[in-house]
């Protein structure tokens, strides 16, 4: 996928952030979303390895060896940041004190089930903090390409891979569409400017409900 598509997804996700929210960003496109936060919106980034108030990457040469994010990248702090241990960190996450988590995914389905940590038969990485983030954050946003690199749909009737969490997805943002996960099923909210509704439906295995005319994003 081109960098443009990745940026489109990150940019669209950034519009979900509201001033003052506590947000946890996974690596890749989720982290990119921090670059597109609308003016006047200040969010507090939580890093599950033990702090809130994460800032951008340091100037090269200014890295602090004791300061990384959960993706193993050196970062900086914003004023008002503070540190805590891992039990407190996941207490914050499970306790509903993270307003939004943004994660990548391998699959998501009509029930809002998320599968993003293991592919049987391939090298195992482990779930890290993903299961806690999905179970605990108030809103789970999935940042993902609409299909995998072989063109297979990632938005499924039912996940085929081992689940990370049951029924926890709230919003799916791809390069083609913005889809809301509701108790009644998946609702197509927006379609990318370079896509048609049919394009989206064709690339999606899950059933998508269209309640109002979908909006357009780019």
């Amino acid at each position: 996928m081109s960098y443009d598509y990745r940026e489109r997804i990150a940019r669209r996700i950034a519009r979900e952030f509201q001033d003052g929210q506590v947000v946890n960003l996974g690596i890749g496109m989720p982290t990119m979303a921090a670059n597109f936060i609308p003016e006047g919106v200040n969010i507090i980034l939580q890093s599950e390895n033990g702090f809130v108030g994460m800032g951008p990457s340091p100037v090269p040469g200014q890295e602090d060896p004791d300061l990384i994010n959960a993706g193993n990248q050196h970062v900086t702090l914003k004023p008002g940041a503070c540190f805590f241990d891992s039990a407190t960190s996941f207490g914050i996450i499970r306790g509903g004190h993270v307003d939004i988590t943004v994660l990548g995914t391998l699959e998501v389905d009509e029930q809002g089930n998320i599968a993003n940590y293991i592919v049987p038969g391939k090298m195992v990485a482990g779930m890290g903090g993903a299961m806690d983030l999905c179970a605990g954050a108030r809103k789970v946003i999935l940042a993902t390409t609409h299909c995998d690199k072989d063109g297979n749909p990632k938005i499924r009737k039912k996940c085929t891979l081992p689940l990370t969490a049951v029924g926890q997805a709230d919003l799916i943002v791809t390069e083609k569409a913005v889809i809301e996960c509701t108790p009644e099923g998946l609702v197509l909210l927006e379609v990318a400017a370079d896509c048609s509704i049919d394009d989206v439906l064709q690339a999606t295995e899950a059933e998508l409900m269209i309640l109002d005319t979908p909006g357009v994003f780019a």
Partner: protein
Amino acid sequence: MNKERDLVQAIADIASGSTIMVGGFMTVGTPEILVDELVRQGQENLTIVCNDAGVPGGGVGKLVRSKQLSILITSHIGLNPEMGKAMNSGEAQVQLVPQGTLAERIRCGGTGLGGFLTPTGVGTLVEEGKERKTLDGKDYLLELSLKGDVALIKAHRADRAGNLIFRMSARNFNPLMAPACQYVVAQVSEIVEIGELDPDEIMLPGIFVDALVLAPADDQTRTNETEGGAP
């Protein structure tokens, strides 16, 4: 009271077959000097509890490479392909635990609790063999406490009584592991006299620490700067 000890002696008290908790997150906060000495002394058949498998040749990855690690209880091994290989070849076992559950199980082990109810992992492979409870319409898994024989932790400052202050994101699992283990060795950058640390700023009471090993700051740089991967 003076808990400062010689590195070699501090590690010599660890037996083969021990369960060792090692602090750190992707090697940040891992006491590399203590791990190096454990490799040198060669205790075998170790069960290691650590957030992750470190990196190849860094953090607990050193114990993977030296084949001293038999079982790893962890949340993530993605940044250390050598661990994946050892697991697939049957040389070592890996027990995967969600990171928040791992932290809380260790905390329970140190605080005399038998276990806790967490929503994490309900309906996933993590649920296998565990009891599910429903409270006010929400499902939880009963997760049990985790203890160790030895904790190897890293802190920034210590006093001679073993009171510790951690620094930035190197705190992570370190203060949780000490209470959960019988014998606790802390690698520290600085040791001051008792009374020099502000009692409100101490992050781990010295009653949890058995031995302090002073390691000069320049030995404490990160072993490996491999970036990427999602722990």
